[in-house]
Structures are given as C-alpha cells and as structure tokens.
C-alpha cells in the first residue's frame, strides 16, 4: 500500500482507481497480531533510542567513570543468544507441527531467559559489593537504568511466553500456536539486538 497514493484518491467519486471491485481494504499484508507486535517494537525502540541519545551526550563529560565489565555479562549475553536460538527452533517446530520439539524448545527458551535475568541480578550484586552504586557516578546510573529496563522488558516477554505455554498445555493446535511462538521469537530477537547495543555501549565507553 503506497500511503501517499492512497491519500491522493478522490472519495467523492464513488468508484475510484483501476479496479472497481469492492475488496477488503487491508493496509498491510500482515496478520493483525504481527502488525501489533511490530508497532509495539517501534514504541520500545523509541524509548531505548532516547536513552541512548541521553547516554551518548552524558558520557562526553569529564566526570564520567566507566564501570568495570564483569565477565558474567558475557555469559549472560550467551544465555540470551541461546534463548533466541531456542525460540527460533520453536518456531520451526511449530511450523513442522512437532509438538514434542516445540514443548522442549519453549521450556529451553524460558530457562535461558530466566538464567539471563538471574545472571543480570548477580552482576548487579557484584557491582554493589564493589561499591558501584547508582548515585555514585552517571555511568553507574545509566548502567543500572539501561540493564534494568531491558530486564523488565524481558520479564514482560516471559509473561507473553507463559501465556503461549499455557495455551500449548490447554490443547491448542500447533498451527494456532505458530503465530504466537513466531511473535515471541521476534520479540526475543529484538531484545537480543537491544541488549547487544546496550552492551556495546557499555563496553566501548
């Protein structure tokens, strides 16, 4: 759908455009839930972009003291990558209609995600023990803010994933679940990208 062509039409002429058929005027050739998730990801992108802009501005000041990077952060990154891979596998299982594989992969994805969140909590604890509090330095504040919000979004995603798992055990057919699993996977991949950007910012500044 070319939006500008669409809003150039003359609706007072009852039949307009090359085809005179009356058809379903859908704007995007996408399922509704997919479009909904994409719009949601756009909104979340704006939130993180604004934080990144504020961060990039603030880090140039002389009082910025970069935080140490506990090696656990690398492990957590690996956990998140594994969760994404598991959900991608789950999408394929749903498409191939293999319920056992789907079940296993959903649980694996959930486990890796919980491991990631647990690992992030451990990182926070380690940094607190070393004396890096949120109010000590702007770098610390932004670290806790960015990792905290990312973690909260992942927690929300786990909520959606749990709904999918509930529907699985409620007897929903694999093709009905395919859409939900696919959208969960898209969300996880998105959060992985956000994490890589946030982690990259923390590493290189």
């Amino acid at each position, binding site marked *: 759908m070319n939006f500008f062509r669409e*809003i150039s039409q003359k609706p007072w002429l*009852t039949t307009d455009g090359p085809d005179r058929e*009356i058809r379903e*005027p859908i704007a995007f050739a996408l399922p509704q839930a997919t479009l909904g998730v994409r719009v949601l990801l756009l909104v979340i992108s*704006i939130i993180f972009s604004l*934080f990144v802009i504020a961060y990039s501005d603030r880090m140039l000041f002389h009082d910025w003291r970069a935080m140490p990077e506990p090696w656990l952060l690398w492990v957590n990154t690996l956990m998140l990558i594994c969760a994404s891979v598991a959900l991608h596998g789950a999408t394929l299982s749903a498409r191939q209609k293999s319920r056992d594989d789907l079940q296993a992969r959903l649980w694996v994805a959930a486990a890796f995600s919980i491991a990631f969140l647990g690992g992030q909590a451990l990182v926070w604890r380690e940094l607190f023990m070393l004396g890096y509090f949120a109010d000590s330095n702007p770098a610390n*504040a932004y670290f806790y*803010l960015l990792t905290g919000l990312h973690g909260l979004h992942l927690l929300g995603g786990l909520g959606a994933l749990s709904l999918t798992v509930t529907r699985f055990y409620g007897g929903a057919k694999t093709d009905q679940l395919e859409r939900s699993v696919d959208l969960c996977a898209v969300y996880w991949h998105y959060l992985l990208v956000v994490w890589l950007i946030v982690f990259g910012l923390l590493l290189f500044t």
Partner: protein
Amino acid sequence: MADITPTAAENIPPAEVEDVELYHAKSWLTKYVFCQDAKVIAIQYSCTAIAIGLVALVLSWLMRLQLGFPESFSFIDAEDYYQFITMHGMIMVIYLLTALFLGGFGNYLIPLMVGARDMVFPYVNMLSFWIYLLAVAVLVASFFVPGGPTGAGWTLYPPQAILEGTPGSGAGIILMLVSLSLFIIGFTMGGLNYVVTVLQARTRGMTLMRLPLTIWGIFVATILALLAFPALFVGAVMMTLDRLLGTSFFMPEIYAMGKQLSYGGGSPILFQHLFWFFGHPEVYIVALPAFGIVSDLLSVHARRHIFGYRMMVWAIVIIGALSFIVWAHHMYVSGMNPWFGFFFATTTLIIAVPTALKVYNWTLTLWRGNINLTIPMLFALAFIVTFVNGGITGLFLGNVVVDVPLSDTMFVVAHFHMVMGVAPILVIFGAIYHWYPLMSGRMLDEKMGRFHFWVTFIGSYTIFLPLHYLGLLGVPRRYFEMGDTSFIPASAQDLNAFVTVVALIVGFAQMVFLFNLFWSLKNGKDAGQNPWKAASLEWQCDRVPPGHGNFGAELPVVYRWAYDYGVPGAPDDFIAQNDPGTGDIEHRT
C-alpha cells in the same frame, strides 16, 4: 461519473478475511466489569475521565477563588495553590482530554465507523482500561499522602520538582511519576488496538479515504501518542531514579540551605527537551481528534459534505508530522542558542498553515449549507470561534521576540486554555450531544442543552479573554496572588474577581449538563435509528444502541465516502455509506 449500479453491487466478491469470531462473555463479571467489548470499555474510560475531570474542575474553582479574592481564603496558601495548578493541569491534559478522546471516543467510534465488530485485540483493550484506572487511583492517592500531591507545575521541571521546598517533593512526586508511567503503558496497549484496527479491520469497501475525519483525527493522534509518550516515560523513569536513588540524570550541583546536596552533573534542560518532545505532540493528540470530530459535526448538521476532504486528511497527517519538530517553542526562555529558537519559531509558524487550512475548510463547509442550529452544531461553531482566537495568540507566542516578555504571564495561560481547554472541551460536549442518541437510544434534553451551551460558550470566552490583557500587563502565571506591584493596576484585581464569578457560573452550568446526562437516560425523547440522518456507518447498525458485534449478522459493505449529503437527485438529503444507490444519480466530479 455514474453512481454504482445495482449489478455492480451483486458482484461483490466473498469476504477474503473471515468474519472474526467474536468473544462472548460468559459471566456477569466478564460481561459488565472486565468486558472486552470496545463500547463498554469506551464508557468505562469516559466515566473515569469525566470523574477525574470533575476533580480538576473543583481545583480550578479553588484557584479562581484564591486569585479573585486573595485575602478571603486563608486556608489556601501558596503551597496549596501550586498543588492545585499542578494537579489541575496534569489531570485535564492527560487524564481527561487524552483519555476521553482516545480511550472514550476512540474505543466507541473506531470499530463502528470502520465497520468492524470490535477492536482487533479486545483482551489487551480491556487491560488498557484497568491500567488507566490504576493510574488514576495512584494519582488520587497522591492527594492523601504526607506532603500532599506534587506542586511542581504540570511540567514537573527538575531540579525543583524533587527538592524540598516544592510541595509534594516527598511522596507526591513519586506517585505522580508512577501514575504517568502506568498511564503510558495502558495507552500504548490501547493505541496498538486503535492503529491496527483502523489499518487492518475495515469492512469491505472502506478505503482509507472513505473514513470519516473523526477516525482520521483519532488515528493520527494515536500514532502521535505511540511515538511521543515514550519521551515522557523516559523522563519520568529518570526523574523517579533521581528522587529515589539519588542519581543525577537531571540534577545539577545544588546548594540548598547553605549545604551542598549530593547531586551533580545532571542537566535540567535534558528533562525539558524530553518533556516537550512529548508535550507538543500531546497537544495535537488532544487537538486532532477534536478537528476530526468537528468536521463530522459540521458536515452532518449543515447537511453538506466536508469541503476539501482530501486536503483535510493531508492537513491532519502534515500537522501530525510537523508536531514533532516544534517542541522547543516551549523552551524559548530556557537559555537556548538564538539560532535554535529561530529554527523552532520557523517550524511553529509553518504548522499554522495546515491548521489554518482546516479552519477555512470548516467555514467553507458551512457556506451554502443547510445549517441546522442543533446543539452539536452550536458547539462546533463555538469551537471554530474559540480555536481561531486561541490559535492566533499561539502565533504571537510562536515568535521568539514576542514570547520572551509574554512567557510565564497570564497571556500563555489564556492561550493554552483557549486552544486546549475551551475549544476541545466544546467539541467533547458537541460530540456527546451528537452521539448520546447512539449510545443510549435517547436524545439529551434540548432546553438544558441550550442553557449549557450558551453559558459555557459565552462564559468561557468571558473567563479567558480578559486573561490576555492581564498577561500583556505582565501579570505572572503560577503566582497565588498578585500582591503589591507598581506595574499592575488595582483594576486588574477587580478583573480577576469578575473572572472568578464567571468561572463559578460556568462551573454550575456543567452540573446542569451532568444532570442532563443522567436524567435523559430515563426521560429523554426516543431517538430512533438515526436522528441526525448521518451517513457514516455507526448510525447504520441494526439496532440502537448497537449490540455486541455492532452490525448484526452481516458486516456492512461500503460503497461511498462518509459525506454524501445533498447529492442532487438522491431520494433523501443524505446517502448512507453502506447504501449501494440506485444507479441513476449523476455524481459530482
């Protein structure tokens, strides 16, 4: 161009998308409380918004009493006054206007006007209302915590907002920020519904350009909301951390009472940019649905198609886009580089062009129309008058040099009340009088309605017009009393007293309106199917009020735009959108 022939109507291909399986509630709780039907959710949003709006109205009376008779109300001190202005402003802009236009009118009208059975994500829609209600509850709770609600001004500027000395800097500001965050989360959920429903759930034949302008206004406003509220969310989260954890996102080095506080290195200007990046689109989130609704009210009640529909759509889209590049006109006195101000003044003046175009088109819609001075029409006409007034004062303020002396005076207060307070509220009233028959099957009482209109319109003008003069004199805003100054004459205080009396009378008229809403539910004249003889789909349901599923067994098929009024040769002075026509009417080219 000939009208659609009956044979073309027979050639409608079968629906490509299955009619959605509508969720049917099973228990009393899921039918009336946790209801997923957008119409019920709309009424829930509207009642909540109006209830909290009444709280803000009472706060405005208290403010006016203080300003009009400063010596007489010793129980209102400066701190109380700051709390009143903050809560009044925040409630009115966000919890009333945004919630009512998008949550109230959006939920009711979008599915009906696009020809859908319900919103596309009904469960998420239902959740969005309860999160909004939670946000309102948290906000109301801030009235009852120690220290009271925040008195930082609706703009919540740091560093003062979270420092001792500002009322509510204890718990009040935290509850405000939490409430805003909840509101934003809820409205993101609702916004997803509105956007995806308009894009993907329109009935057959309902192209984007056959949508009524009400939907265009709400649709573009929702897109603005989805893109702009994140900025407020970011600011709110950062300010909450500054307050709770002692971080310094917005807090510079500060000495308070001779002692240096632990903050340092933060930027208050960062908050201003974040807030106004949200704040300017926010006023268009309120204005665009109002523009759309007014176009429909004028069209229906003047029995004439909207003049320049395409340009109206383009204007809504362009205003929406431009609204993201004007925000710093709220920051001219923040100490910015003059070239920065120059850029934003330019974009601000540019955005006046599509807005003015809309005013011309509304006026031209009336030209040679069959104008019925019904109550909705009266409110629509009053909107045009008050919006032009408010918009022109906006042009004054949009210019940096003129804004510098007028900033933080009553001139600004007069401007934003005219464009945000008077004009959109008049549209809300007009819309309620217009769609009440659809929602209840009864007409609102005429006599009470006309009384309500005239007192509100003349009264609101009488309240806010004099404030322009006070502002030009230099009377500052956000001061709880003028006190003794050499540049403010005593007559200004008399003017304040006069405005207060008028405000209380206008407030009384709103009570008459509220009474009318409830009284007419039982005693109102029976409205019938389509009392205004409107062409849009919401009036073409199988019954009034529309039942669950909106349109009965079959979804309507749309053959024409929403503005076929006074078509020469047609049997009636309007042709409904789902009317295939008879084939022998010459359509306008």
